[in-house]
């Protein structure tokens, strides 16, 4: 069964065409991440799915039912917002039960679901506190709890981690992944952070300027990007791009090499001057100035390389990607 299917969805704000012919299928239990730079339309797409914005054209089906005209509360979705959006006048329990009370669920059901969700999220000690008395991470968990109790057909997450600090972000990321395993629910997750996308997703949808650039599993996108944009967007540090003629005179294509596919090699074809070195312990990142473009090189382990020295590097030609002028991948 498909949890969500979008057919030729378009959205315009006046003359501004924000979403262009979006087609997408989300299978039951799938974790789908929308990723892209800011302004690419990923949040708008999520809001169209939620029903907070109307699609200008196209069809939206949730669990097999067309929902274009269904109000958000009847679409069988729950949403977690970047700013948490907890109700300030209600305590944690009140925040979690409000939607169920609106649906007129019996009291026993409400209590059972709140107990279940607060157990999963470790919120039991905080049920009687107000949002202003909670820390950022706790608030985010309440927001997630508020979504869980509704037992939606589809979870929508709108950049839920971007207000958390780095350490908490990683913990919460793992928590969300665990939650997805436990609930085996369909989830859509919007982020601009490619690490979150890579670590959480079953399927990544890369968006740019309101268009889907590529859909696939994280490793498919990483190993087999359809174009220069996807290649450059996924992976950190991001892929190096240089004109292929720098290494192979007369070649009009653009070449892309991932930083980790370049290695130290005495007689290697890439020569340049090291402009900066980042020693991370496990990895060493080297920025190399070459005549054609600066390259980022990720060496595993620790290396004694200093800024200002000349160095030569080599790479495995089979790991290089080639793109045409329009940025499309050439295979």
């Amino acid at each position, binding site marked *: 069964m498909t949890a969500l299917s979008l057919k030729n969805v378009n959205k315009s704000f006046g003359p501004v065409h924000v979403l262009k012919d979006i087609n997408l299928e989300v299978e039951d239990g799938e974790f789908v991440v929308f990723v892209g730079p800011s302004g690419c339309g990923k949040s708008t797409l999520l809001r169209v799915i939620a029903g907070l914005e109307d699609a200008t054209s196209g069809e939206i089906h949730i669990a097999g039912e067309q929902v274009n005209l269904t109000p958000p509360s009847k679409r069988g979705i729950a949403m977690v917002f970047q700013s948490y959006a907890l109700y*300030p006048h209600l305590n944690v329990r009140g925040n979690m039960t409000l939607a169920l009370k609106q649906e007129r669920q019996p009291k026993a059901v409400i209590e059972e679901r709140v107990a279940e969700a607060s157990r999963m999220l470790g919120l039991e000690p905080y049920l009687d506190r107000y*949002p202003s008395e909670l820390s950022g991470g706790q608030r985010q968990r309440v927001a997630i709890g508020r979504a869980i109790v509704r037992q939606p057909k589809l979870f929508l997450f709108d950049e839920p981690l971007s207000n958390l600090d780095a350490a908490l972000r990683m913990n919460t990321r793992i928590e969300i992944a665990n939650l997805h395993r436990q609930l085996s629910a369909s989830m859509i997750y919007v982020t601009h952070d490619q690490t979150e996308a890579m670590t959480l997703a079953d399927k990544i949808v890369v968006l740019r300027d309101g268009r889907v650039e590529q859909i696939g599993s994280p490793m498919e996108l990483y190993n087999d990007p359809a174009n220069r944009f996807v290649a450059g967007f996924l992976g950190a540090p991001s892929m190096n791009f240089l004109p292929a003629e720098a290494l192979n005179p007369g070649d009009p294509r653009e070449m892309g090499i991932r930083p980790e596919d370049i290695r130290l090699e005495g007689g290697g074809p890439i020569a340049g001057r090291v402009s900066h070195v980042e020693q991370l312990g496990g990895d060493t990142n080297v920025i190399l100035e070459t005549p054609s473009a600066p390259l980022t090189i990720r060496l595993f382990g620790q290396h004694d390389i200093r800024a200002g020295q000349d160095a030569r590097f080599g790479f495995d030609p089979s790991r290089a990607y080639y793109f045409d002028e329009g940025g499309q991948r050439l295979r």
Partner: protein
Amino acid sequence: MNKARSNPLNTFAMHGALILYTLIALFPVFVILINSFKTRKAIFREPLALPDADSFSLIGYQTVMKQGDFFLYFQNSMIVTVASLTLVLLFGAMAAYALSEYKFRGSTLLGLYLALGIMIPIRIGTVAILEMMVASGLVNTLWALILVYTAQGLPLAVFILSEFMKQVSDDLKNAGRIDGLSEYTIFFRLVLPLVRPAMATVAVFNMIPIWNDLWFPLILAPAEETKTLTLGSQVFIGQFVTNWNAVLSALSLAILPVLVLYMIFSRQLIRGITSGAVK
């Protein structure tokens, strides 16, 4: 903590300035209060002296209580002020929410139109208002005053509140929509509590001119049973003789309810509950 704030010299200077300002602001009130407890002669002999055994007198208050139906005036003023404020806040907030939340054709124009009232004094329309009130039979009723004050207060209320409502997080309203709250519930339960400080500001801004107004009560509702406190106090001010004891006593009494209302609203200015809603 801010460095400038923790400096004792700065703290001292800041408090000094504030105390000085408070003294200046309270001085007229203080003079009114002390003189309302003095005999007529003592008021003129030494206006700034505190009432002592010799000059103490409650004659002013006695006059006020005897002459005219002071409690009725008081009640009228209270009804008019509270009813007008309620209507201004209710309709002002609703209009502001509509203008800030829903973008529809002409919403900007409508917002400007509503704000235009700030620039045009309502008293220019007094004659037309009086004609309208006569035509609708509302002359000498409290409704005449309530309606006029509501109209007078709305432009500023809409203007201020719509600015504040734009700042209320969209996520919060959307969370309510997804949870199945109606637009009215979102407005009353989520948005209004968050703009309470702005509501209190609007209330305070509107309250004092309404309470103190002499113009409209005199023109629209001068009848004995609809007189407001300000209008009622005017009986003591004559063209040739003014009963200062009574005037000062009436003014002292008139300050009290505004003070109480002000304290209620200023409490609301403290945010407290709103922090932690978002972010």
